[in-house]
C-alpha cells in the first residue's frame, strides 16, 4: 500500500519512505478543478516544552488504511470535492520531515480548504497510528498514552481492566 507513484489508485497510503508530494499532487489534477488545497504535517522539534530529537510512527495497518479510506470518502461526499488523497509515514522520522500529507482538488477553493481540514482533523483522531517521541534527554514516550496512563490512579472507577 504505497501512496507514492504517479497515479493515486488508492486514496490513502502508509509509507516507509519519504512522501513523494509531486506525484501525489499531480494525480489530483483535473480540468474541472479550479482549486487545490494541501496540508503538510512536519515533525516539530519540541512537544510540550520538551526537545524532540526524532520520533517513530507505528500503525495497525489494515485498520488504519480502511479508516482513512472511509474518512476520505466522507470528505468527498460531504464537501463535494473532486479528488482527495492522503499519505502518512510510518517508521523513524527526523525533525523537519514530512509526516503526513493531505491534498484535495475541487471546482472552487472553499470546499477544497474545508475538505482538507476535515481529512487531517479526522485522520489525527481516528487512525490507529501511534507516535513515540525520543527526547533530548535520552528518554522517550508514546504521545497521548503516558499521561492517561496515570489517570486510573486518580480515580477509583478504573474498571475491571485497570490493573493489579
Amino acid at each position, binding site marked *: 500500500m504505497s501512496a507514492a507513484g504517479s497515479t493515486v489508485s488508492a486514496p490513502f497510503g502508509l509509507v516507509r519512505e519519504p512522501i513523494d508530494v509531486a506525484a501525489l499532487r499531480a494525480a489530483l489534477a483535473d480540468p474541472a478543478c479550479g482549486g487545490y488545497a494541501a496540508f503538510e*504535517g512536519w515533525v516539530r522539534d519540541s512537544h510540550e516544552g520538551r526537545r524532540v530529537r526524532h520520533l517513530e*510512527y*507505528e*500503525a*495497525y495497518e*489494515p*485498520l*488504519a488504511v*480502511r*479508516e482513512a479510506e472511509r474518512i476520505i470518502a466522507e470528505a468527498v461526499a460531504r464537501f463535494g470535492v473532486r479528488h482527495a488523497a492522503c499519505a*502518512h509515514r510510518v517508521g523513524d522520522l527526523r525533525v523537519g520531515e514530512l*509526516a*503526513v500529507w493531505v491534498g484535495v482538488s475541487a471546482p472552487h477553493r472553499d470546499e477544497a480548504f474545508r475538505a482538507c481540514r476535515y481529512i*487531517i482533523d479526522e*485522520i*489525527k*483522531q*481516528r*487512525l*490507529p*497510528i*501511534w*507516535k*513515540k517521541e525520543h527526547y533530548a534527554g535520552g528518554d522517550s514516550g*508514546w*504521545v*497521548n*498514552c*503516558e499521561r*492517561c*496512563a*496515570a*489517570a*486510573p490512579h486518580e480515580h477509583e472507577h*478504573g*474498571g*475491571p*481492566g*485497570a*490493573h*493489579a
Partner: protein
Amino acid sequence: MSAPLYGLLLAGGRSTRMGRDKAALRVAGRTQLEHAMALLAPRVERAFVSVRADQRAEPLRAAFEQIEDTRENLGPIAGIIAAQERFPESAWLVLACDLPLLDAATLEHLLRARAPERLATAFRSSHDGLPEPLCAVYEPGSRAALAAYVAGGRNCPRKFLLQADVHLIDEPNPRALDNANTPEEYAAAMSTMGAAPAAGTRRVTVQYFALLREQAGRGTESLVTAARTPFELYAELGRRYPFTLDPAVLRVAINSEFGDWSAPLREGDAVVFIPPVAGG
C-alpha cells in the same frame, strides 16, 4: 536466495522419563509423531523422521522417509548432524515430536521470521528466555559449526544456539513449545488442549501496538481464554502484563474492524486493543 527447506522430525529419543515411546502417545486423535508430521510436511519440500538404527522398522516410523543417526549417544543433535550430512545444501526445519501443543501459527511465525543469512532461526523460550533448539530452522551454514561443536565433546543443542549466530524470536503462543517428557507433563498438556473449545473457552490471537506492545513484551500472541468479551480479555491480560492504560481510554478492534467491548468473542477472533492514537 535461501536454501531449500527440508523438515526433520526428531523421534529417536529413548523416552526414558516417559516410560514409553513418546512418538506413539496420542494427541488430538492420532500419535504425536503423526500430529507433528502433519504440521511439518506441508511446510517443507521433503520431510523426514530422524531415527536410530534399531528404530528403522518400527511401524509408526517406517511410514515416513527416514534419516538414520550416524553417531551414537549424542541425543537429538545426532539427528540434525545426520540430516545435514545427507543433504548439506538444505536448510532444516527441525521439530521434536513431543510438542503436543505446537500449532500451525507458531510454525508459520518461525518461517516468516527466518533469517537465512544467520546460522539458525529459533524461538526464545517463554519460560526461561533460552533458545528452543527443537523447533528451529538450521541453515546450511550451521553445518560446520555444529560439527565443530560436537567434535569439541559437546552435544547440547540449546547451548550450541546460545553461542552461535542465531536469530531469536518470541513465541506467538507462549505454551506452544511446552514439551511433555513425563506422564504428568503429558497429562497437563492434554488437559490444556481438551479444555480448549469445550468448556466455554476459545482460542484468540491478540496483537499489541505501541505502549501495550512494550508492556506485554511481545507483538502478538495466541491464547486460549475463558473471557467472553474484549473487556474481560483485557482484564485477564492485565493480570499478566503491567498494563497502565485504563480500558476507558482504549478502543478495541476485532478482525481488523472497530468493535464493541461487550461483543461476544468467538473462536479464532483476532483482537487488538487500541491505545490513544497520535497520528498526523
